[in-house]
């Protein structure tokens, strides 16, 4: 049903000034509370009247959640640091151009000015059936409307679909997975540090969430180790429009070169599964090989093994292949096809 839009239901607004206060509020209100950073995802849900939280906790006043600082050659980025700040930060650009590029290509300048990196990685699925408020698996129902014979599912998953075929829409998430980042999550007085890869979860694990964050959890910071600083990075996003569009597929790769051969690699594609899809087989196979056409071809074939296309998204298979080849090629000039 097309529900009434743009008439936000009332809620109680909290604007804590510290992480401690924020955690206290979250603890008190549990599942009734909604954490809001930049509001780019939040207001879609609230204005569409699909989510009606009793309490909204606006993190906009919590200064300690913002900022980028050196951490032993790596970086620690506050969760509510804006995407614009991440994209323009000299340390990010110098050490992790992959992340700077990913942040720079998110949505539009206005959204990047308001949207945060924590919000970008924690945002919910953008499946238009789910976002229409339909009672699909992800919304607690018993069907995936996007995975039916007549569904329009050009933007949906080709990997690891389990009932739900929504994809993770983030641009920065695959970059952070490719950089072995860790996410700091606080809850009450406890703190846990979750590797990026474990932060994102597929529908098999929990069909109603894209991340491990539960009510009461607060993502406070992103830690990027020095491991991949200054290594070879590649990011590319394929989309319909050059601004204000989610990725059809994006790829984030970091390669450690020793001489002309790849000594270690991380390669992650997003927009193809409910979590940033790490190409483990490719990473293993390209170790010890040069960045040449043969490696690229082999990697491309490996990358798409196990892909299951839907009616309208089979193109994602050759597109993933193309992007994997391009990531291995980097700035070199040889043609991949």
């Amino acid at each position: 049903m097309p529900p009434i839009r743009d008439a936000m239901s009332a809620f109680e607004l909290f604007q804590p000034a510290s992480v401690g206060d924020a955690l206290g509020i979250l603890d008190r209100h549990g599942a009734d509370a909604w954490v809001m950073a930049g509001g780019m995802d939040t207001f879609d849900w609230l204005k569409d009247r699909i989510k009606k939280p009793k309490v909204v906790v606006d993190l906009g006043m919590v200064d300690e959640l913002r900022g980028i600082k050196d951490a032993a050659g790596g970086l620690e980025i506050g969760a509510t640091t804006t995407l614009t700040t991440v994209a323009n930060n000299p340390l990010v650009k110098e050490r992790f151009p992959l992340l700077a590029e990913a942040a720079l290509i998110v949505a539009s300048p206005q959204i990047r000015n308001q949207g945060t990196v924590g919000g970008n990685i924690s945002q919910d699925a953008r499946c238009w059936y789910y976002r229409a408020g339909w009672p699909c698996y992800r919304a607690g129902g018993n069907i995936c409307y996007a995975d039916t014979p007549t569904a329009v599912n050009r933007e949906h998953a080709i990997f690891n679909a389990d009932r739900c075929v929504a994809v993770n829409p983030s641009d920065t998430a695959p970059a952070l997975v490719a950089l072995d980042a860790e996410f700091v999550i606080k809850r009450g007085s406890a703190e846990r540090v979750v590797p990026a890869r474990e932060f994102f979860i597929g529908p098999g694990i929990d069909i109603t969430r894209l991340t491990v964050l539960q009510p009461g959890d607060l993502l406070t910071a992103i830690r990027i180790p020095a491991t991949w600083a200054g290594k070879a990075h590649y990011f590319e996003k394929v989309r319909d429009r050059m601004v204000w569009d989610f990725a059809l597929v994006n790829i984030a790769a970091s390669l450690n070169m020793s001489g002309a051969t790849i000594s270690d690699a991380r390669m992650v594609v997003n927009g193809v599964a409910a979590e940033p899809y790490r190409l483990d087989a490719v990473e293993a196979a390209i170790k010890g090989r040069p960045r040449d056409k043969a490696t690229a071809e082999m990697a491309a074939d490996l990358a798409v093994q196990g892909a299951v296309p839907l009616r309208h998204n089979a193109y994602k298979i050759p597109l993933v292949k193309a992007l994997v080849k391009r990531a291995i090629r980097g700035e070199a000039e040889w043609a991949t096809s």
Partner: protein
Amino acid sequence: MGNLVSWARSPWGDSVLTHISWDLFWASLIGGLLFLVAHGGYMLFSQHHKRDSSEVDRMEADRKGLPANVLRHGFVARMFHWVMAFSMLTLLLTAFLPIVGVQFAWVQWHWMAGILLTASIMFHIVHATFVLDFWSIWVGPKDIPEFKAEMMREVGIDAPGPKPGKYPLGNRLYHLAVVVAGLSVIVTGILMMWRVRTGLVERNPYMLTDSTWGITYVVHGLMGVGFVGLVIAHIYFALRPEKLWVTKSMIFGTITRRQYLEHHDPDRWVAESKSGSNVG
């Protein structure tokens, strides 16, 4: 039914059922455990009257032809039971572990176990119809005299009246419940195969209307949680000391001649030797 099932707005704005409330799982679990405690307590004081040993001695003397070990469950029947038990436990674990917080990709295991269950049940129906004594497990009005007598015996009175044939009445009632619940989960579960990706059928999530699907999911859920209680009860009985001889027979196939005579009416259940020939 307000809180026992969950409702949603269909894309056309209609109220449709989606699931049972998972609280019902806890209800079934707790119900099963409460029954277990209650029955266990009851058994401490139970006056259950089985056949007098003197009578059994006499019967044993009368029936010299009886083998020392009477076949209760043939190999095929035992295989079926354990395959079914395995698939049922897998189904329950894959269905309910995620609800209690153990999260894993369960759907594939669930439907595969479901297929195993379905296949085993289908085999069982054929086997029971053509090979086994089909009616020996069913309950009906004709069992009322036996029911009366067994109730009397339960309170310690050596009542006249029929003794159980091959299957005691409780056993048969349990089977009936399992038949109803089992066929319900199987039929609904098979329909659900059109909803998920299995590669076995051509998916059509729109095969039924939104509201019919809702009922399907609710029935599957209700019967599924029902099985939690049923299975708890079943395992409990299987492990009760006084029932262990039955449990053993499901493993080894036979009971002793004496057990046979103690618990059954040899006229209603004509014992077979292990080879399968009648030795009545």
